[in-house]
């Protein structure tokens, strides 16, 4: 069970929050979906979900006045998890439908997925392995897993490219292209895949996250 505190799921008008909420609710009772800045700032843990285009995502945050509150939350050192588009928005800029500024919490940009092999479809829809960039990088964090290269569910056309390689928490390969599939900067995590739809291996990440404490 959770060690307490409120887990807040940010509703900014993009995508399916219910599947994130139902995975969280398996493990803790104290969670809420909100679009209110005040509740976000009072959170002990923050989840930024979302599917869709980068610009639409930033716009959804902007019209609700959530850009500054989320940045402010990120500075507190409390645990934060971005999923799919929510993870992409953590970066400085996105290039989907032209360059757009992101939240700028993690250095880097979001670019188009470009498989090098022929006849490989974009978006990537389906399961793919994630691997630690170096042995021993996963124990004691939310990615601790009985499997060395667990399978996760992806739905995306864009990927993040962190400027600093030490934030890379997982890599995957799609159509010959190796890309960063998860990042970690302190207590801030981002997953390009959907842990909440990735079977037991995926919801284990959610379970570890909702048990993280401040700092």
């Amino acid at each position, binding site marked *: 069970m959770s060690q307490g505190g409120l887990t807040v799921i940010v509703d900014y008008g993009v995508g399916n929050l219910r*599947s994130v909420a139902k995975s969280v609710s398996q493990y803790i009772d104290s969670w809420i979906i909100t679009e209110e800045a005040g509740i976000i700032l009072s959170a002990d843990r923050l989840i930024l979900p979302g*599917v869709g285009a980068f610009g639409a995502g930033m716009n959804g945050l902007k019209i609700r006045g959530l850009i500054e509150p989320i940045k402010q939350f990120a500075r507190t050192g409390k645990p934060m998890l971005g999923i799919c588009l929510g993870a992409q928005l953590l970066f400085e800029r996105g290039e989907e439908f032209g360059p757009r500024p992101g939240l700028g919490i993690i250095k880097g940009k979001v670019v188009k997925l470009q498989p090098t092999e022929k006849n490989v479809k974009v*978006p990537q829809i389906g*399961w793919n392995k994630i691997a630690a960039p170096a042995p021993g990088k996963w124990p004691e964090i939310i990615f601790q897993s009985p499997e060395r290269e667990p*399978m996760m569910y992806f739905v995306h056309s864009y990927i993040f490219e962190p400027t600093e390689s030490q934030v890379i928490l997982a890599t995957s390969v799609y159509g010959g292209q190796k890309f960063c599939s998860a990042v970690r900067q302190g207590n801030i995590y981002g997953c390009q895949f959907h842990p909440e739809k990735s079977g037991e291996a*995926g*919801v284990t990440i959610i379970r570890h996250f909702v048990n993280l404490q401040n700092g």
Partner: protein
Amino acid sequence: MNRIIPQLHIKGPMVVKPIHTEALRIVGEPIELAKRYYRDGADEIIFLDIVASLYGRNPDLTLIEVVSNAIFVPLTVGGGIRTIHDIAQVLRAGADKIAINTHAIKNPPFLKEAVEQFGAQCIVLFIEAKNQGPGKWEAYTDGGRERTGCDVIDWVKRALDFGVGEILVTSIDRDGTRRGYDLELVRAITAISPVPVIAHGGAGTKETFKDVLIDARADAVAASSVFHYRDYSIAELKNYLRNEKIDVRL
């Protein structure tokens, strides 16, 4: 990586199994089947309400909610989707993707509207195809009951222009027969589709899965009878495919 997807046809509170899409047999309760398939390694699950659109009914939101609470893989829901509001409600109930057939044929720009609102990854074009001679198929609607006069390949091209993110194609001729997928039909669609194609209708032996994945280049396979009647489990099927050098999640 190829996906293995159990497809559940819902009628009222039960899962049924159509044969040639029309004759029905009750095979079990949706929640129990969905849970079993999830535990067994299903990569996704598809729910189709096969009479919702015929009777102008809306999808059963309570059922979707109960099922989605029990499984942690993507859930695609189809049947009776007619408005943007319908899609929003079904997503809120826990679906991840929406399959649209009848209403897309009646009002094709609806696909575009849906894609713009919810993203391509969310909108699946669902086609019920009936063979009309060599290399020709006609699209049907309402659970294989209504002819449309639309050529399947022309319809696929048009729907791709509207931006759908995936295509689910059922062969009415093969549905429930266990005679193997209509490879020619699936091949004709995968040849022109830049988005993933899910083949359905005709799964029989484990070899029939291999054939549609390799020969017809399907990205994913959906099946009902072979899983409902326990010909073999999803895990057994995946082990077989893995031995045949087909990339699946184990």
